[in-house]
């Protein structure tokens, strides 16, 4: 299962106000010259079928909600690849009044591919790196026992940090009035 997960990453592409440079370069990865399909990468149109979300463009207040919504529609395990410098920091649009400054502030990004736009080779490398992370996430995921006979695969809960637990104040019991 883990091996198959790494070999068939399906990609959904989300454009968050990109200048279309990264988008065109990303589509170039599908051409016979670069042929992303030889790695099992399929460019899929819907987040419900996708494993990897590729975000391009500087995320702003207007589309942050859309990005979050699309991310939540993807079934676990899932990986986000920030394509280009805009979803990493905001890029040349970072000073814009409405730019949030990176996709990381909206969704958890796993791989950053810098460049304006990145080379197609770098994009392919980023997606394959994402596929490796995807397989790792699948291996570390726990299968929750189905309540309604529908299997749920969730990321494992973070390991409990004893130092943080000690530092946190003990929960105060509410007194019955």
């Amino acid at each position: 299962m883990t091996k198959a997960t790494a070999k068939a990453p399906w990609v959904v592409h989300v454009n968050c106000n990109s200048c279309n440079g990264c988008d065109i370069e990303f589509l170039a990865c599908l051409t016979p010259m670069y042929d992303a399909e030889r790695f099992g990468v399929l460019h899929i149109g819907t987040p419900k079928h996708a494993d990897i979300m590729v975000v391009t463009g500087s995320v702003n207040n207007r589309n942050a909600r859309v990005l979050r919504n699309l991310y939540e529609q993807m079934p676990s395990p899932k990986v986000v690849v920030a394509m280009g410098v805009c979803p990493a920091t905001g890029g040349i649009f970072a000073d814009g009044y409405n730019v949030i400054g990176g996709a990381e502030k909206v969704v958890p990004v796993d791989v950053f591919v810098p460049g304006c736009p990145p080379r197609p080779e770098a994009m392919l490398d980023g997606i394959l790196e994402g596929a490796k992370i995807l397989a790792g996430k699948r291996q570390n995921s726990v299968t929750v026992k189905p309540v309604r006979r529908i299997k749920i695969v969730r990321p494992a809960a973070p390991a409990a940090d004893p130092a943080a637990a000690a530092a946190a104040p003990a929960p105060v019991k509410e007194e019955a009035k």
Partner: protein
Amino acid sequence: MNDIQQFFLSHLHPIINSLIALVLAPVIGGLLMGLDRKLTARMQGRMGPPLLQPFYDIFKLFSKESMVVHRPQVIYAVCHLLFMMLTLVMLVTGQDLLLTLLVHTFAAISLVLGGMSVRSPYSWIGSQRKILQILAYEPVLILLVLGVRLLNGSFWGINVLQSDTPLIQSMPLLFLALISVIAVEMGKSPFDTASSHHAHQEIVRGINLEYAGPYLALTEISHLYETAIAFGLVLAFWHTCLIGGLVLAVLVFFCLALVDNCFARLTPAWLVRYMWLVPLALALANLICLWR
């Protein structure tokens, strides 16, 4: 009656044969789909995915979280698979061909109901187009069954295998009509109106849009069964000679890949017009020739 027929008919055990077919059909279907993707890539000057890519896809989908819109959607996906398996079992055990056709239509209708049960407009459009497809190819299949009836005097599939002359000898035009039907069922390019791997901009994934994870994998497995059934029918057209049947299958496979790469997707209305003009006319002409 030659050796292959003797072997098949003497080893005819309904339960064992059905089990073997149920296990082998997805494997063969998956290999055919992988070969198809590889061949398509080579026709486009690409390297293409590995041969086992359809199996990787399905295993990956099973390892994902299952998200459903509502629970009837699950039932429709399972029904689609079960009816497709039942079609295969009925074909292998040589049941009544008309009934087999009916069960096969049930499988398609389950998929349509699943697509209609969610509120995505893309899924609705895909389902409506699937209904149009059923409307387009079903008369040809019924005429095919009627042709078998005229030839053998019986609707039973087992009688086809017992006859000494291959079907292709007396029904060449119906065979040509069947190729179009297979292209529609496998979602090959001029006919892939309901659901397509490539339709990103038009109706996204159409009828399969709202399935995710394991339930998408179920519809993919049904598709593998459908592919295997289609090529099984092609083999049955020359059942007296295994090499002849394989030659037919390879020819059909190559033609479908070529047509898939040469044509753009056309409109659903065109599909109905085409299917009711060309393959239906071919089938009717063949029936008239068979009439005694």
